[in-house]
């Protein structure tokens, strides 16, 4: 049998991967089609791989129309073809990454627990089962891991607070709301390596003494939902979840809950309200969710990628993880290169590369071939950067020094046709649509902001931005001024008419 890999993630399926898989499967009974996750080289999707004696060779982007010529070119033996990309592991885009959290994505069949185990799966959990709560938390603190959901709060410190809280019931909530435009790294992880998230959540449960975990998943990700539910069932059958994890007598369960199309429900306290079946209104802090969280109990809330980084930290040690990165940004972060870009996709790198490397070396410049104009990093609440910022190091502190944010690692590229006044206006429009309505600066200010831009009243606009910045309850209202002000400051000409 010849193993042929055809990815099954949302992006490759949108490009026709299901049909390609069927078509290849029909070529010969000698072919065993494996639906792997994705490597994240989205610009090559569907990326078809053939297992040869030298390793997996890649062809992409493959459409149904290419299958017969691939067959004629002998792709089953790694034959040459226009779409031939060489050995997968030697493709520059992949080779130049540091894959820790995403090490298995693309490599394995996401729902094969054997694949998972053969590639270091559950090693972190097995180690954690031999450690005390405190030792697990210390390992995370040593790693320097900071929350990948946006706020970059040290994960170990958060866990420590929940660990020390006294309660008969505690919860682990995984934030899989991934609402930022220009991001899909959580989706790729969940679709390509769901056991990794399950393992990370279980370790979190062991660390803080929680026995129940929820994954709050955005409704726009139906494939994630079905893959996660299957993976949870498989983990249960194999005693990696449930009443007696790996025979230790410890237990932990996970349930997937669906969001309902609200951006602000990605904010952690709004997410808790939503998980409780209520309107997603932001809660005032304190109390911290670590003390009074879901259903009033101490709760760890972490992004998908924070939790999915935990298994490798436990397996290889906090020091190993902390060896990557610069300054106070330790480890790796998954960047997503998106928008008007030639080679869009997921790039996991140690902190400290510069923006230009991602946009030009990985991304290959604009899709349109026109001049690069703006780069929005960190989602809809992130700053618009310009060509002058390409030297900027991707590091939490370097970004905050220039009034920008790394957020969840989304990088959206705009060419010269972008109008930055429209983009600033959209930031307010989006805030008005998504505001939970709890506080006035955000609820009313967002609508006023749109009007002020339309009326070109930029003095009052500055004042409004300062007000929203200082007196909003959460970052929705508090950070909307960031994209607005960066657009206004860097491209004043766009605002003249």
């Amino acid at each position, binding site marked *: 049998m010849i193993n042929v890999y055809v990815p099954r993630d*949302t*992006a490759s*399926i*949108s*490009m026709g991967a299901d049909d390609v898989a069927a078509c290849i499967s029909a070529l010969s009974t000698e072919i065993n089609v494996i639906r792997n996750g994705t490597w994240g080289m*989205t*610009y090559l*999707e569907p990326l078809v791989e053939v297992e040869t004696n030298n390793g997996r060779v890649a062809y992409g982007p493959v459409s149904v129309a290419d299958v017969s010529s691939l067959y004629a070119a002998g792709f089953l033996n790694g034959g040459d073809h226009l779409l031939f990309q060489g050995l997968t592991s030697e493709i520059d885009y992949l080779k130049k990454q540091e894959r820790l959290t995403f090490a298995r994505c693309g490599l394995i069949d996401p729902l094969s627990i054997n694949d998972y185990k053969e590639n270091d799966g559950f090693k972190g959990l097995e180690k954690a089962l031999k450690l005390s709560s405190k030792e697990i938390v210390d390992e995370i603190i040593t790693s320097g891991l900071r929350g990948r959901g946006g706020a970059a709060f040290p994960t170990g410190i958060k866990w420590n607070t929940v660990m020390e809280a006294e309660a008969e019931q505690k919860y682990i909530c995984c934030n899989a709301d*991934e*609402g*930022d*435009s*220009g*991001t*899909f790294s959580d*989706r790729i992880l969940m679709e390509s390596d769901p056991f990794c998230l399950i393992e990370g959540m279980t370790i979190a449960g062991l660390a803080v003494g929680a026995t129940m975990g929820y994954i709050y998943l955005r*409704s*726009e*990700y*139906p494939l994630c939902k079905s893959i996660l539910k299957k993976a949870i069932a498989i983990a249960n059958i194999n005693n990696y979840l449930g009443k007696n994890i790996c025979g230790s007598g410890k237990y932990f369960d996970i349930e997937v*809950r*669906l*969001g*309902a*199309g*609200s*951006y602000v429900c990605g904010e952690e306290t709004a997410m808790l309200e*939503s*998980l*409780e*079946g*209520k*309107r*997603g209104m932001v809660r005032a802090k304190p109390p911290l969710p670590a003390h009074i969280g879901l*259903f009033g109990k101490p709760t760890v809330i972490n992004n998908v990628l924070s939790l999915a980084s935990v298994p490798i930290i436990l397996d290889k040690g906090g020091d190993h993880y902390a060896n990557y990165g610069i300054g106070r940004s330790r480890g790796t972060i998954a960047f*997503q*290169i*998106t*928008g*008007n*870009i030639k080679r*869009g*996709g997921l790039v996991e790198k140690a902190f400290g590369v510069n923006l230009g490397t991602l946009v030009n070396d990985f991304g290959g410049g604009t*899709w349109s071939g026109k001049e690069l104009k703006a780069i*929005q990093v960190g989602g*809809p609440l992130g700053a618009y950067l310009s060509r002058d910022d390409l030297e900027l190091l991707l590091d939490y502190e370097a970004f905050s020094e220039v009034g920008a944010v790394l957020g969840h690692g*989304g990088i*959206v*590229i*705009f*060419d010269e046709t*972008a109008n930055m006044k*429209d*983009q600033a206006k*959209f930031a307010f429009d*989006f805030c008005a649509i*998504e505001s939970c309505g709890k506080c006035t600066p955000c609820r009313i200010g967002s609508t006023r902001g749109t009007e002020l831009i339309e009326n070109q009243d930029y003095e009052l606009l500055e004042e409004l931005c300062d007000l929203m910045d200082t007196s909003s309850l959460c970052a929705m209202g508090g950070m909307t001024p960031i994209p607005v002000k960066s657009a206004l400051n860097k491209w004043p000409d766009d605002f003249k008419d």
Partner: protein
Amino acid sequence: MDDFLQATNIVHRFKKMPGGLLECLHAIQDFYGYVPKETINIMANGFNISRAEVHGVISYYHDFKTLPLGRNVVRVCQAEACQSMGSRELTSRIVDLLELDLGETNEEYTLDAAYCFGNCALSPNVEINGKLHPRVSPDKFEKLIKAGAL
């Protein structure tokens, strides 16, 4: 009509689930295609909360619809990555073609905005009846309609 017997069954399935109202609403909407107002009472009773509370939850979330949708549901991504690839022009072409604004419904179509499908490396994205279409130019959209892909 089933006198909303199914709604009663669905509510029964979820009422014991902690915080289960959202899951219940999704299930109701999956079954009826929207959340019929007759089901609000059933949910209020099942979850032991007021009708106003159920209504408050329904109206808060973009996903939940209180009226039947068109035969075809078209959702166009309006978020930044898709904007950078021309979603504004695409949207106005779609608005013209379907003769509907975003958020409107007629018998044939429901046209809605979406804010990111997580497919931002292949923008702009349009979802038609649950199937995601990447790199949709205005012409490609027109072809999709004419080919009866809707």
